[in-house]
């Protein structure tokens, strides 16, 4: 059952379309990462879900209730901000207590001085204190409760922000790049912690990030947004191995996927050097198409019978692997390959190499970006044919 569902959300600012009809469903306890380049609308979408911004059209349903017209405070969503947005004048403990106090105490009970005289507030306040302490203990920040945000490190502030968001058990959890202000080591560590907290709380989470490795490593499903469109929503593996759009393929993966332009004839056959692919569609005439191959599926070798020939231009040593930049002789385009250090030792800049592509790993895209399904023709037989 889906806890959060978005139907066809659109939003534009001053004539610029920021969101062009985004739909999404999050199930119980699901962790969805919204990933995309900056300006793709992912943060705007999050703000719309939170109720901090209004969609031009579309529907938001949280826990079976349409909330498009409901104020942010009444949607029962919690959010962790990139800047943490802790109240600078309150201690960590008071910060965490705010959402509880706002919900449990009446307006009169919250009044300074007079509120202390109201009946029943003492019991509620004690209860809130107990919960704050429990939350802080589970996040290992109980020793920081009396400190103000200005006296804490980035990592500590981030935990306090998490605690403030989690303490009131929201029905949806929103996170807007909560790790981007941490240093690299802490960020990797915090990833694991957030995933663990998410598992324990079991609350559906929308996690906005521009960092693809964060998205792929943390999420149950990844939603790739580009230019205001949600291009694909799938598991990390599916989205990496089987992208539905060239932009998705380009955005995910480091180094970036190799994209080469070629043509498809009327029968749906695509030739790329000695590689021949049969597309699952037919077109009335010859059309340009794009072939995408991830660098790890590009093989370089000294053999003369690869599908293409290239010359090595540059290598980047990354420890466990080496990135090789080469230029294809035939079309003058660059191709990037990921090879092991052992093989890389045999490669010298300027050396001619043969390039092979793992045939079932080559992906076809229309020039507009949509994925074309390909039935790969055996490369060897294609090669034979080329020779014959």
């Amino acid at each position, binding site marked *: 059952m889906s806890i959060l569902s978005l139907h066809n959300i659109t939003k534009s600012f001053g004539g610029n379309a920021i969101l062009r009809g985004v739909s999404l469903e999050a199930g119980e306890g699901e962790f969805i990462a919204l990933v995309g380049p900056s300006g793709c609308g992912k943060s705007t979408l999050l703000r719309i879900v939170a109720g901090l911004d209004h969609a031009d059209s579309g529907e938001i349903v949280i826990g079976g209730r349409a909330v498009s017209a409901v104020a942010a405070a009444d949607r029962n969503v919690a959010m962790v901000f990139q800047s943490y*947005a802790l*109240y600078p004048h309150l201690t960590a403990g008071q910060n965490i207590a705010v959402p509880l106090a706002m919900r449990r105490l009446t307006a009169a009970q919250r009044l300074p001085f007079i509120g202390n005289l109201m009946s029943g507030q003492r019991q509620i306040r004690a209860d809130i204190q107990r919960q704050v302490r429990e939350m802080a203990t589970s996040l290992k920040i109980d020793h920081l409760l009396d400190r103000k945000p200005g006296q804490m490190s980035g990592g500590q502030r981030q935990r306090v922000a998490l605690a403030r968001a989690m303490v009131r058990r929201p029905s949806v959890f929103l996170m807007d790049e909560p790790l981007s202000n941490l240093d690299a080591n802490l960020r990797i560590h915090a990833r694991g912690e957030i995933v663990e907290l998410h598992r324990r709380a079991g609350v559906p989470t929308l996690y906005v990030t521009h960092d693809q490795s964060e998205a792929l490593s943390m999420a149950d499903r990844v939603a790739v947004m580009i230019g205001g469109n949600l291009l694909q929503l799938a598991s990390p593996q599916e989205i990496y191995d089987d992208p539905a759009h060239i932009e998705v393929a380009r955005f995910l993966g480091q180094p970036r996927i190799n994209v080469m332009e070629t043509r498809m004839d009327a029968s749906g056959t695509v030739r790329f050097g000695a590689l021949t692919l049969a597309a699952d569609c037919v077109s009335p005439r010859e059309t340009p198409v794009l072939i995408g191959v991830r660098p790890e599926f590009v093989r370089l070798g000294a053999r003369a019978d690869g599908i293409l020939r290239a010359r090595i231009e540059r290598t980047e040593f990354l420890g466990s692997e080496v990135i090789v930049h080469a230029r294809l002789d035939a079309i003058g385009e660059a191709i990037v390959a990921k090879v092991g250090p052992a093989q890389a030792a045999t490669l010298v800049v300027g050396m001619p190499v043969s390039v092979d592509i793992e045939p079932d790993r080559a992906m076809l895209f229309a020039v507009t970006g949509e994925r074309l399904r390909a039935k790969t023709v055996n490369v060897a037989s294609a090669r034979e044919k080329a020779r014959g």
Partner: protein
Amino acid sequence: MTAHSITIGRILRFCLLSLGALLFLAPYIFMISTAGKAQSEIFSSSLSLVPEQWSYVENFVKALSRVSMPTLLLNGVIVCALIFLAQVVVAIPCAYSMAKLKFRAARFMMVLVMLGLLVPIHATALPLYVAFDRLAVLNSYAALVAPFSISVFAIFLFLQFFRAIPDDLIHAARLDGMSEVGIVARVVVPNAWPAITAFAIFSVVAHWNDLFWPLVVVTNQNYATPPLGLLYFRAAEAGDDYGALMAATLIITLPLIAAFLIAQKRFVEGITMTGLKG
């Protein structure tokens, strides 16, 4: 060698600054001196800074006995406090809504605030006077306070300060369940103390020292503010008793000087934080 030249430069700068300070302080110093002189010495042809005969006690006794100094000071405190309170209560929600809420008239209102900054009290004095007269509220605290209760300067100053408050903080407060009023009271004001302190100094100094408006609306001595009281003192009681007059002036300037010295650190902080340093 360099150390030597720096010392000379330093001495020069120090001298220049001291000279400037002395120049600005000269009238006040002369006032302190005159407050301690006897009538005959003030009108003598020689000019000395240190009184020949110390008549401080005499002059202060005169100043305190001839006018009701406590009433003047109390009026000053009441009027300044009411004005400041009203200004803050009006300006903070105004500035918050213009800085952080999106609505169509925001730009137009901003223009109005800017225009408001350009209109001096002297331009509106006459219509206000006529209106207060019709309402029969001349000679009251209301007449002294009401025209200043909405300060466009305060709105402008707080607006600049609030714009620097991160939007995320406001968003977090909304998600935590606060109403807009709650956000102003619980998040904005506690973080705006430097701006409020800076504005307090501007406001209190201006209205404590204001002579123009009290002169227009107050003829009853019971509502006289300190500068107006001095005027009465000079006209009616002291005549040409400048020693006593200076003593009285000294008394009414003391609260402000004391307040500034106490709040000096916060004041400088507030000015630098609001970006008014220019």
